[in-house]
């Protein structure tokens, strides 16, 4: 049997073909070029996330100029405490040392952030009850923050506080 009205099918096929073409064109325009570059996501997103400027310069940037501080630190227990952990984010200062200068720190508030006694802290970590230990006196009055151990000859009878609750760090 011969199919008479084949034209209907051709027209239908043309409509489908046009539809598929429009879909492919729209998809090409709407899906970003880098989508699928590495996986099911926009590859350009990686570069965009990388662009965020860092606020913390990293201790290596600090040590490049402040080698004198590093010399003090290597002798003491604070060698692994990086500069910006106390001094705050200073990437701007690292870029333009004259433009931004670090703020002066209040050791009475700063040191207790780590060294205030807390039963949850590991036993090896040196801890004090600051009220008993120094009675509000700034820690820097006796301890040098970059190398905090008090050497025997530097101790004076008036300035020496009570011994700390915890023993010195093992590591």
């Amino acid at each position, binding site marked *: 049997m011969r199919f008479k009205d084949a034209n209907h099918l051709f027209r239908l096929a043309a409509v489908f073909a046009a539809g598929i073409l429009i879909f492919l064109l729209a998809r090409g325009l709407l899906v970003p*070029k*880098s*989508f699928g570059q*590495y*996986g*099911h*996501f*926009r590859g*350009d*997103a*990686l*570069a*965009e*996330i*990388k*662009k*965020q*400027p*860092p*606020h*913390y310069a*990293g*201790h290596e940037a600090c040590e490049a100029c402040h080698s004198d501080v590093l010399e003090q630190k290597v002798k003491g227990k604070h060698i*692994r*405490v*990086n500069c*910006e*952990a106390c001094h*705050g*984010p200073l990437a701007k200062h690292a870029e333009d040392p004259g433009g931004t200068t670090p703020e002066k720190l209040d050791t009475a508030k700063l040191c207790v*952030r*780590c060294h*205030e*006694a*807390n*039963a*949850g*802290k*590991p036993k090896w*970590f040196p801890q004090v009850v600051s009220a008993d230990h120094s009675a509000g006196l700034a820690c820097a009055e006796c301890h040098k923050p970059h190398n905090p151990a008090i050497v025997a000859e530097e101790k004076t009878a008036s300035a020496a506080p009570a011994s700390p609750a915890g023993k010195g760090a093992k590591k």
Partner: protein
Amino acid sequence: MNIDRRRFLVLLPAAALAWEHVLAGTPEQASNYNTSEHWWGMLVDIEKCIGCGSCVRACQQENNVPDGYYRTWIERYRIKEVNGVETLEVDSPDGGKNGFPNDTEPGVKQFFVPKMCNHCADSPCTQVCPVGATFVSPDGVVLIDEKYCLGCRYCIQACPYGCRFLHPQKEVAQKCTLCYHRITQGLTTACCENCPTGARQLADLKNPKDPIHEFLRTHKVQVLKPHLATKAKLYYNGLDGAVR
């Protein structure tokens, strides 16, 4: 310059192709960072964590995290026995940002657990995203494409570790990026940079010289919720069985 029509028509597609490359830029070649050479993770040594909150503060400042939201936070676990029954208390005041009040009650087992995105290799959060806005990068970091995120919150529900939140102004999901902008520049993450005891350490599992390999070989290291088979890359040393 003298060009006839034929030559002009021949050059036109080539010029269009070249212009496309100019528009696209070549960020990947610009730096010497190669994504295929890294596989990032992190090591947290609970026995070194003092709960000072330096990591939380550093993360908030580095990544402009809004107040009351945390990409990393510290939990304090307090385990005690009352009439032979073990009770567990977990607190995290302001994410542990300003430390913890001292609990001097005797006979209580106490410790701090820093938490953040586990950067799972088989991550549930990336699998549920309907638009491909969150993904595992070729170097093993779970990231969010903020331009593509719809804010549907599906990933926030899917994360078994509770590490995601919806940014209150941008209305997109946010989470720890493992400081992707820093680690691709050769810096460490803000939390690792500021941890005073070295309780957190960034680890490149593809770098054979990274001390992580020696550490994993010589210590008893655990990940959170291993039964979920997320292939988490946040390794904990000294993790108590009570931690969830």
